[in-house]
């Protein structure tokens, strides 16, 4: 079954075609975020060339080590925040946009991202890691305020 959810922007709307089989399946994909811009779109031999050499870090029990084209990388697994789902969408034909409507199709889901830095263990100093703070702060500042709490303070 496919559910369609629309996201409306000022200039266009995006239809998210969510295949519930993919959404509810127990399989999730492995996501790696590398600190480079790689000029390539499409499949890559990740399991043969990258994850086959992945090791746990000798200096940090949650840390990971790997190499990309000889460059040393250090990484950590970062879970998708609670209450959220990690989803991967693809657009079949980005050149054919009709009535400012775009169609995205759910391809995969994920429960965590392995975040890699060049020769430095990821920490809360990394923008990506600390960006997730916003989710909690946003929850707090947008939640309803109890009248009594306001008058008390």
């Amino acid at each position: 079954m496919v559910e369609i959810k629309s996201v409306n922007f000022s200039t266009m709307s995006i239809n998210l075609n969510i295949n519930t089989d993919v959404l509810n399946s127990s399989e999730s994909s492995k996501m790696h975020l590398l600190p480079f811009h790689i000029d390539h779109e499409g499949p890559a031999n990740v399991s043969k060339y990258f994850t086959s050499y992945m090791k746990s870090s000798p200096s940090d029990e949650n840390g990971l080590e790997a190499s990309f084209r000889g460059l040393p990388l250090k990484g950590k697994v970062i879970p998708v925040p609670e209450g959220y789902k990690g989803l991967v969408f693809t657009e079949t034909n980005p050149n054919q946009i009709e009535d400012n409507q775009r169609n995205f199709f759910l391809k995969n889901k994920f429960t965590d991202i392995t975040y890699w830095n060049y020769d430095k263990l990821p920490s809360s100093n990394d923008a990506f890691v600390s960006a997730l703070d916003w989710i909690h702060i946003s929850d707090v500042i947008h939640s309803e305020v109890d009248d009594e709490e306001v008058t008390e303070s």
Partner: protein
Amino acid sequence: MEQVHTVSNLPEIERCIVSNDNSSNLLIGSVIPEICKGQPCVLGIDEAGRGPVLGPMVYGTAYCPVDNNEELLKKLGCADSKALTEKKRDDILESIFKETNWLGWMVEIISPNVICNSMLRRQKYSLNEVSHDSAIGLIRNVIDAGVNVREVFVDTVGPPESYKRKLSEIFPELKITVASKADALFPIVGAASICAKVSRDLALKLWKFMEGIEVEAWGSGYPGDPVTKKFLSENIDPVFGFPQLVRFSWSTASKILKEKAVLVEGDEIDDDEEDENKTTRAITSFFKPKAEPMDTQTTPTVDRHIFFKERCLQVCNSL
């Protein structure tokens, strides 16, 4: 330092190499001869596989009692490994293996991945430093195993004077000689050189590709070898470049990737050529007043709070 795998013949060395994860280093050595724990010993150090673009670099050491060592080692045929044929080297190594009661050895096989990672890390760590540290590690391992080392002969890497000073500071109690072509001058270095060279050749020949690629031959690893050239031009993954047998930090390898693999950009990827072309700013340019923004017609943009800036968060208006 990693654990030493004790072996006593060539097939055992082969087994060690094959069972090791080839992205990390491997230490292999003989049983320590009892006599070396008592009598004053001489220790020699040499490397193999420094120049090639493929495979590990190997550091080797051999040690034995000082007494009469040159004569005994010459009898075994210990000399510069490069001047010997492969068959001759294997034969001499076999005879080294037989002299278990007075002659010991140890090699460190330094993975090409470790070499690349060292040379390409944030704080650059040169091949010379990798080499020096391996030599220091071998001396320390042999001493820690109980060998009564008194004299050390090392084939130099870089200027011999500063290398000697570095070693003397770490091992002040040892009599240290650092020389170029030490393998031809001192039989104990010749013995170390044979251990290193045979191990390097084995490690290259027995390489297992974790990338799951099928390759018939990759040659000697020297950039001029036509088999190596062919291997490099035919085994390029557009994203990941080469399998980890290749030393990415060699210009031979990086030039090929620049031409044949997809472009990868990041702050850490040096472009040496660009650096050379950087022009120096004229000194007067530092004194020019900064141009004031005159354009008041454009709508002022609201500066986002530092919280969002630091986290690279922006409002998404479209995709």
